[in-house]
């Protein structure tokens, strides 16, 4: 497509996202902390919106977290990713969609580095052949799963049973969107809206009836910091960054936070719990926190799926105030059920943070 004038300027912030036929790679963190999000991403795209998304049983971690904790050499990380490309090629796909933002950043960085230094790509091809006897074509399109949901946002809106509107007042809900750093801070042209105007999440929130809040620390990191969270001795870094964000957004009274990185919702949720235990402070009304959702969970709620099937019970901050505002029915007694409605012992309760 040829863009002119203002359209040309804004074309830097657009991203072409193919409509169909994707090879899907999962996220270690999303699988561990929000497994239902991946399940519902596939359910929504495949079953509801009839898209072809393929998963290979043979794909593995991309190694991104080990790479950003400096525990494996760059060529190791590249060869693991090259193997994923080989699985994609063998399955007959050319569009790759990642569940994880660290993976998305990792894949993007690798493709960009190879573009600049073709000799390195050649070396990695050799490594892959020697170690796995595999060959690959590079993906034609690389997207994060939130790009795809962004692309499908209007189709989701057309099927919505609930919207991001306070059913009592009729006012749009106030949404904080938090974009994972590795989505577009490294290579702005690879994300929808770039690093300056990322609209991948705000586009969804607005299409589903919400109003996005702008606040001073909107683009500040959640504080994962890889080794800064994973090593117990360093976690003050991680919590301090989350604290800074919450103090900054507090005056705007957000109803919900949505995120596209699998790690961010975990940290923004759990550090609220820790801040409440340590400081006695909570950021939502009446001792509640601000619910932090993945974009898949938000899409699922809008579409009318059961909140407990979507996995909202595995967040430490209770989602009930949000569900009540949106007018979504739920069965409190089923919240902590296991498989086939089996009753399980319920989790312990935090000392300060109200969870239901």
């Amino acid at each position, binding site marked *: 497509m040829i863009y002119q004038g203002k359209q040309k300027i804004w074309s830097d912030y657009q991203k072409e996202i193919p409509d169909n036929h994707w090879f899907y790679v*999962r996220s*270690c*963190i*999303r699988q*561990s*902390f929000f*497994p*239902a999000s991946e399940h519902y991403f596939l359910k929504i795209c495949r079953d509801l919106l009839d898209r072809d998304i393929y*998963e*290979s*049983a*043979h794909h*593995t*971690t991309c190694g*991104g977290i*080990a790479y*950003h*904790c*400096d*525990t*494996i*050499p*760059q060529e*190791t990380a590249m060869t*693991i990713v090259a*193997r994923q490309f080989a699985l994609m090629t063998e399955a007959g796909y050319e569009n790759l969609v990642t569940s994880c933002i660290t993976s998305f950043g990792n894949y993007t960085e690798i493709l960009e*580095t190879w573009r*600049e230094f073709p000799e390195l790509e050649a070396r990695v091809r050799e*490594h892959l052949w*020697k*170690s796995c006897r595999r060959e690959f074509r590079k993906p034609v399109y690389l997207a994060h799963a939130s790009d795809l949901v962004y692309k499908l946002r209007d189709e989701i809106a057309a099927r919505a049973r609930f919207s991001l509107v306070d059913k009592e007042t009729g006012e749009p809900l106030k949404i904080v969107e938090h974009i994972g750093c*590795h989505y577009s*801070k*490294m290579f*702005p042209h690879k994300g929808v809206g770039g690093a300056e105007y990322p609209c991948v999440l705000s586009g969804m929130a607005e299409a589903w009836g919400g109003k996005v809040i702008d606040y001073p620390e909107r683009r500040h*990191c959640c504080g994962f910091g*890889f*080794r*800064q969270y*994973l*090593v*117990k*001795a*360093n976690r*003050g*870094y991680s919590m301090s960054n989350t604290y*800074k964000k919450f103090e900054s957004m507090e005056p705007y009274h957000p109803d919900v936070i949505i995120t596209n990185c699998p790690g961010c919702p975990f940290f923004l949720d*759990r550090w609220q*719990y820790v801040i409440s235990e340590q400081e006695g402070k909570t950021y939502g009304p009446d001792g509640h926190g601000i619910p932090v959702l993945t974009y898949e969970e938000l899409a699922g709620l809008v579409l009318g799926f059961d909140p407990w*099937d979507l*996995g909202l019970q*595995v967040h*430490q901050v209770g989602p009930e105030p949000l569900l009540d505002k949106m007018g979504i029915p739920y069965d409190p007694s089923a919240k902590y*059920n*296991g*498989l086939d409605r089996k009753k399980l012992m319920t*989790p*312990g309760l*935090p000392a300060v943070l109200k*969870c239901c």
Partner: protein
Amino acid sequence: MEKKVLYLLNMGKLFDELSKDYRFKEGFKTCINCGTCTAICPAAEFYKYDPRKILDIVQRKDDDEILALLKSETIWYCGECMSCMTRCPRKNAAGLVIMALRNLSAKLGYFTCSEKGRQLYPLTKVLTGNILKLGYCVHPDTYKYEDHPESGPVFKWVLDNKEEVYGRLGANYGRQGTGALRVIPKEDLDELQAIFDETGATERIDFVEKCSEQKAREMGMTMEEYGKYTFEHCSRGHFNDE
């Protein structure tokens, strides 16, 4: 290790070594010392860390100063968020330069000279262990609640009821096939091991372990004590307000 140190003494060109790293090639152009990276950096706000200074030291190409960096605490403070990469007016990426410095520090064994650098031992053990044994970087089977009390009572509940909770949430925990938390087949784990052997990761893991064993001996600790200590202990002096 001795061989590596000798090689280094003969060569005396740490800057040249750094320059071979593709992250360095990508992340280091010319720094005009504007301080934008430091202003935006989440690590600089809390830690005694200044990416501007690091870029400046590196561009002076002084081996003694670079050697001091490789042995320092400061190169381990960065969170690799890459916020700096967006903003630098000269298209530097302090985060990528840090990755190259850390890689060289690990490669030459200097990481054991600093408290934060020594954390490479527990990180390597857990993360590369997870990749090679399970095919994941992070997995609930090796994520212990005792090490992660911040994950809250709700995650303790998840871990205590893994089959039930993951089963209900549509995961394929502990089974073959596709799906979240599936068991990654042995043949795929073998390929990961072959990639590690081919690309230098196996050698790196062994070297990090050897250097750490030596340091543990110097500190009078068993490896178990050393692993726990490096994972948990935080001395005073790392933060801006200390």
